[in-house]
């Protein structure tokens, strides 16, 4: 295991008078959440291995405003958006990759009208492109033949019609991709969207993440694959609620690719 990772910032690039080929938008979860930080690092290792000239904003990055907007606080959202756009435009950012579907959706769909026009891709799309360009290879490693089910993040799938990119990566691991009854455009939410991540759920007879976890368990998976740090948390909690954490792992697609390569 090689734990040394190279993470240059935009300020570093600027100081050298260079510009990166892509900006990696880490996101709040990817920066601060202990589980999500592992996804961030796994993705960075892949970027390093593929020798991608990427940069992060580091301390200059700030919340995209998505949770505020979905909670109804348009003011706070637009304050965040315009502050971020000022920085992104000052650095003349053209393309962005992010491992968070919420950041992805907001940057891609809601920033343009406010003056932020970038080519935004999800990290699963970016990894596919690296593989297609011959810059990154994928081995099955210990994922070969494993039963893996993919949970569609709402903000990647239904919201932006990206269904195949994460699945293509899983297939490249020579794994057995098994679909839940509710998948792709019919996928059930993990329960975190629309700012639910930050509050207790309203009174009901079940938690949404438990319902979704049960749907995943029906496929008898060895691994539940996710493409969103929030879905990852919700599904991990669901697996714990079902006391299955010894048997079933919840992993981001990027983590699987990195682990298969022993990165």
């Amino acid at each position, binding site marked *: 295991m090689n734990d040394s990772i190279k993470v240059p910032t935009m300020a570093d690039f600027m100081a050298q008078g260079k510009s990166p080929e892509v900006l990696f938008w880490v996101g709040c979860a990817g920066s601060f959440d202990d589980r999500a930080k592992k996804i961030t690092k796994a993705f960075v290792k892949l970027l390093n291995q593929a020798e991608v000239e990427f940069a992060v904003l580091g301390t200059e990055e700030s919340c995209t405003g998505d949770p505020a907007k979905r909670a109804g606080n348009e003011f706070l959202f637009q304050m965040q958006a315009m502050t971020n756009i000022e920085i992104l435009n000052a650095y003349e950012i053209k393309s962005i990759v992010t491992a968070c579907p919420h950041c992805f959706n907001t940057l891609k769909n809601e920033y343009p009208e406010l003056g932020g026009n970038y080519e935004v891709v999800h990290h699963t799309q970016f990894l596919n492109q690296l593989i297609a360009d011959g810059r990154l290879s994928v081995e099955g490693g210990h994922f070969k033949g494993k039963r893996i089910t993919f949970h569609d993040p709402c903000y990647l799938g239904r919201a932006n019609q990206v269904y195949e990119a994460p699945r293509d990566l899983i297939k490249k691991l020579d794994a057995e991709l098994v679909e839940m009854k509710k998948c792709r455009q019919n996928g059930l939410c993990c329960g975190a*969207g629309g700012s*639910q991540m930050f509050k207790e759920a309203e009174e009901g007879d079940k938690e949404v993440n438990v319902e979704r976890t049960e749907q995943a368990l029906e496929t008898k998976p060895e691994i539940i694959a996710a493409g969103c740090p929030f879905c990852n948390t919700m599904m991990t909690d669901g697996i714990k609620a079902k006391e299955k954490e010894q048997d079933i792992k919840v992993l981001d697609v990027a983590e699987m690719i990195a682990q298969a390569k022993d990165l």
Partner: protein
Amino acid sequence: MAYLPNFIFALILAYGIWFFARNIIRLKKIIAIGRDVDLSDNKGERWKNMAMIALGQSKMVARPLSGMLHIIVYIGFIIINIEVLEIIIDGIAGTHRIFSGIGPLYGVLIGVFEVFAILVFAAVIIFWTRRNISRIKRFWSPEMTKWPRNDANNILYFEMILMGLFLVMNATDTPFQEMNSGNWISQYIAPWFSSIDEGTLHYIERTAWWLHIIGILGFLNYLYYSKHLHILLAFPNTYYGSLQPKGQLDNLESVTNEVKLMMDPNADPFAAPADDQEAEPGKFGASDVQDLNWLQLMNAYTCTECGRCTSECPANQTGKKLSPRKIMMDTRDRLEEVGKAMLANNGEIVDDGKQLLDDHISREELWACTSCNACVEACPVSINPLSIIMDMRRYLVMEQSAAPSELNNMMTNIENNGAPWPYNQMDRLNWVKE
């Protein structure tokens, strides 16, 4: 005297059409209560959506059984209208089966109508069974109180009766049966009446004919009072449906202007507003129907309460109060309330001390939404319950500061340190070293 039936027919027809037209005008006025929104863009794509989703029923078949049954009823409804045209001409001109002059094709046409009539009849029986015997869950949700359930059944009874009358009319039409062309189904019904003398038979045929056309006019006029308006509004509703990715939520322009002003170091905070700006800034978000836009209001009238949205909703599936269908039904109920009072008051909206928020839709429902778009995806006619939920959240947060306290904490964190959790922005890159 010979022209009396023609006269009575024309009178009934004119009244039926006039009453319908009057209600459609009312409907247009009520929908116009909504805020204006310009949807005159991308006409090509919009026509395509309408052709695919409404005309082509593309989203109905996401559920194959109900989808196929619906397509039968839908096609039956459309093609049997050709028969209605003949009835209208016959009624006014006093002719009998005026189109029969076109030759053998007439037999084929009527034969096809008869096949569809029997198929529609069967489909409607299955629909009725699904609602009342199998009691499929989405038809028995809490918002499906007595009237919505009766309304749905009324429509099914209407369709059964209309199809039945059409077949009886053909079966008892002696000249038509003797022609023996096009009586593909009714020839099997005709023997039921074989013991009846010709005079009575003719009387039954005339009665069925009259009841059929009166029934159709009645059905037409029932639409406005029922959930069944979708047979008309599905077309404009899918035309005007959103063309954006589902994840894209509109940016409030009024907020953009204020935020720009706040962030512009050269802005003069004491500057008088430009003349073209409204003296009073509009309300942020929506607490009542007039704060929603006209498309959201048309959505409410288009909803036929099928409940596919609610059955896909993660909050509803896990026992929360939120039901996207109820959001649409509440919006329509409140809109009718506001609309009726407005029309009775020379087009001026009357303040009745009530609103959509709290009096119809509770905060608990609004905060249970995960914004996952499952309801939007599920709707076969491009209704967007999520946009109403989001507009109402905006009102709660920006006009009333009434977010749940945990969300207020989250927003305070974003304001103070640029993340929904209380971490220092300066620590954002610490993960690299950990």
